């Protein structure tokens, strides 16, 4: 394996601005001079050069379609090619402010997706607006807040386990809550005593991932739910790990009141180098009246329409300027439709089988269990970040490293269902080869990638955030 490394003679591929620039001309401006700018110079690549520039850059980028990508907690599934085609349908590429009678097709797809997600999560109502998982969390927190407020309660705390995703803390804080961090139990799960201690009159919400970030199912989930509810709080399900449960467990059945879905994880929409995703939020009946505005609902029989918009009675209003990320939602719908009941359930089965199989082949220690769709190995005496860099040389993407902190030098590994035995064995070889290598080798890695080890300190110390800041 050697990753592509393009350059125009130099060591690096030039920036577009280093290839060709042009200036705008304001002599023929239709506006008075004092309303226009004086000059603007930007790169301009005519189509042949534009295509080469970004084709080359793409080859210097590793995606799921390049090879295994077992990034724990990110559920890097194969993104079915056909979902791109359905999302690209020009009939769906319309303005958000069209009258409702002119978007009945779009609303039909959205309504079906709301319905699918509700069934999958065991929820009663779903909003599709949140454009990402964190936006879903924020929305869920706003909904919970509105619920408590409508009940005349002023609850100021949200409890989040220490091992939770960073977004849980940040979303709670963004909504103005105090975050109470919950230490983990010895078995890697929620410590009921600690929870008891944390719960109180101020508790608005407990945010949980289940299985948690160690891949462990919270076996006491019913008791947890009872405790939270008894304290007057609500229970939030972080959908990041839903891929472990499809068809075998539903948050709604476990006592969760509100949840978000990461469709770019569980439902295989592309991660796009960081986004866009979508973070629909599902809620139980009691919370439905607080969902964002509007919901897509079936029109009454007497209407000439099939679908219409409805504002939930005590809606929190908008969390996205319009209705969220249409292209992503359309792909998620297509994916769910492709799999159906059997496919969804099989996806979870194979995801869990793959994680367990890979763990069984890896020589690093895996301290907790039984895990589901992901496992966290410990690099032991090795530096997990170095292990990751060295794995790159074997043509695979490494796991998430150094998190959750409960495992020292953590290698958080989620192969997902899409890998076959052959690829898992390849991954295991990469793990095990690296495990046997010395620290110098690891520190010198990677060698076969587009870039050698990148100096993070320099990047942060000598900030160069645009081409203006480059002086070479």
């Amino acid at each position: 394996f050697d990753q592509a490394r393009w350059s125009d003679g130099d060591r690096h591929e030039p920036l577009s601005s280093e290839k060709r620039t042009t200036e705008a001309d304001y002599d023929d401006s239709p506006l008075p001079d004092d309303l226009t700018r004086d000059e603007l110079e930007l790169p301009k690549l005519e189509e042949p050069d534009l295509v080469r520039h970004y084709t080359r850059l793409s080859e210097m980028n590793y995606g799921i379609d390049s090879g295994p990508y077992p990034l724990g907690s990110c559920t890097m599934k194969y993104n079915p090619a056909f979902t791109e085609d359905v999302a690209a349908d020009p009939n769906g590429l319309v303005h958000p402010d069209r009258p409702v009678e002119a978007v009945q097709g779009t609303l039909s797809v959205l309504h079906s997706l709301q319905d699918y997600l509700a069934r999958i999560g065991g929820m009663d109502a779903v909003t599709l607006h949140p454009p990402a998982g964190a936006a879903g969390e924020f929305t869920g927190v706003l909904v919970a807040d509105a619920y408590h407020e409508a009940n005349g309660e002023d609850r100021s705390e949200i409890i989040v386990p220490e091992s939770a995703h960073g977004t849980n803390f940040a979303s709670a804080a963004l909504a103005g809550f105090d975050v109470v961090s919950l230490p983990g139990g010895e078995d890697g799960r929620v410590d009921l005593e600690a929870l008891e201690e944390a719960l109180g009159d101020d508790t608005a919400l407990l945010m949980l991932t289940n299985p948690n970030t160690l891949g462990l199912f919270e076996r006491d989930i019913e008791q947890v739910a009872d405790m939270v509810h008894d304290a007057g709080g609500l229970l939030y399900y972080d959908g990041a790990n839903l891929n472990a449960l499809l068809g075998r467990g539903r948050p709604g059945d476990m006592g969760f009141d509100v949840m978000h879905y990461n469709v770019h994880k569980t439902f295989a929409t592309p991660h796009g180098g960081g986004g866009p995703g979508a973070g629909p939020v599902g809620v139980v009946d009691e919370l439905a009246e607080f969902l964002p505005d509007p919901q897509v609902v079936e029109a009454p029989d007497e209407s000439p329409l099939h679908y219409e918009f409805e504002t939930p009675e005590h809606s929190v209003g908008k969390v996205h300027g319009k209705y969220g990320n249409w292209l992503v939602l359309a792909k998620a719908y297509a994916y769910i439709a492709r799999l159906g009941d059997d496919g969804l359930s099989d996806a979870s089965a194979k995801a869990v089988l793959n994680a367990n199989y890979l763990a069984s082949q890896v020589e690093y220690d895996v301290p907790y269990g039984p895990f589901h769709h992901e496992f966290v190995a410990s690099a032991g005496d090795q530096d997990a970040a170095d292990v990751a860099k060295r794995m790159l040389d074997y043509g695979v993407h490494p796991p998430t490293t150094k998190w959750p902190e409960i495992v020292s030098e953590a290698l958080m590994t989620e192969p997902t269902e899409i890998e076959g035995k052959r690829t898992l064995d390849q991954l295991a070889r990469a793990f095990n080869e690296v495990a046997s290598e010395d620290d110098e080798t690891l520190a010198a890695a990677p060698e076969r990638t587009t870039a050698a080890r990148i100096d993070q300190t320099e990047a942060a110390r000598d900030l160069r955030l645009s081409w203006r800041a480059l002086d070479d």
Partner: protein
Amino acid sequence: MNGRDTSGTPYAPHGDAETRTMLDAVGVDSEEDLFDIPDSVRFDGDFGIDARTEREIRAEMADELAKNRDLVELLGRGHYDYYVPSAIDHLADRSEFLTSYTQYQPEVTQGFLQALFEYQSLLVELTGLGIANCSMYDAATALGEAATLAERLRATSGTRVLVPDHLESGRREVLGNYVAGTDLVVESYAMDDGNADLADLQDRVDDETVMVYAETPTVRGCIEENLDAVGDLADDDDALFVLGSDPVSLALLEEPASVGADVVVGSASALGLPQSYGMDLGLFACREDFVRQVPGRLVGASTDADGTRTYTLTLQTREQHIRRERATSNICTNQAWVALRAAMHATGLGADGLADLAKRDVADARDLAARVDDVKGVQAPHHGRHHLREFVAHTDQPAPAIGDDLVDEGYAVHVLDEHHVQLCTVGTTESERDDFVDALTEVAR
């Protein structure tokens, strides 16, 4: 090796024999045994979702979406249907881009990082500000993030965020939710014939004000003529001057830095993203000295062990996965792929091409307004300002009825109130606008 007898996901490559071998290696009899879920919360029902073939789903969705009416849209108000060259689609769909995730391993993701660095750089050139992040969700959430930035930066004990009275309702609501967890309050200042009412603004700005927000062009397509003065007013009271705009307008209008803007937010989806039912790309640029308070991801240049220029995510200590509840924002997954598209489209257009789009948008709006003004029963533009892309027209007859009649004729326009409609030229062809004027002539009298 045999095939697979069980039905299941088409995207798991396990033959039955492979599954068996793997189960044996793990030491369990069946996949079921791997699930550590108490019986009491096991789900043994089904979702009632039928699996369909790829071909069937394509046909089904094509049929559904064909139910969307074929309308000529003269909408706008933040969402613009600029033509996206096919090459952008093909390039953005390159699966190394599309199927990658956040660049946690920059050594194997130099391609996307360089593209995002270019995106940031383009916005730096367009705004004149020192920093741009590599995307927010949309214009509304970018505005919300600007307010939380203002809160973090505020020198005073103030709480007031001032926004224009005309602010688009979605943006206003989202802003409201972003500040709900703070002690900030959002207030409006008046508009004067489509521009900021400076007198009213002056009355409202005081040392309790942490942020003044203005837009150019405004949601009604009016070019804001007194940005300097707005900036000065904000500056006088140490309030953050946040300007809303977009990359096409910025290629023609005054450079934000030159009018004192501290932050620029807005929608960058006019570049590279087809109209997508409101899906957007949130633009966020600001002064360099705010760098440790910026929300969202930043790509910086560095060098690698070979001494080669490289790119990497930087200042991640601002972000939620490290700083948790003290992060500058909760954003994680962003709109990187849309930013990639925007960078591609802008790079194909160049400064001249971008400015040409904006000039055309001014000319087209002016031309359509003049022709609409000739229609009996309609006066346009309603505001005595320069317009870009769109403008408000006054109708003698009730506007809602005119809007409905126009839909019947195959045109979608914004109905603002009883006697005002708003018309946008972007995405329509000259002959479509000709036909529209004819249709309006029919329905407006």
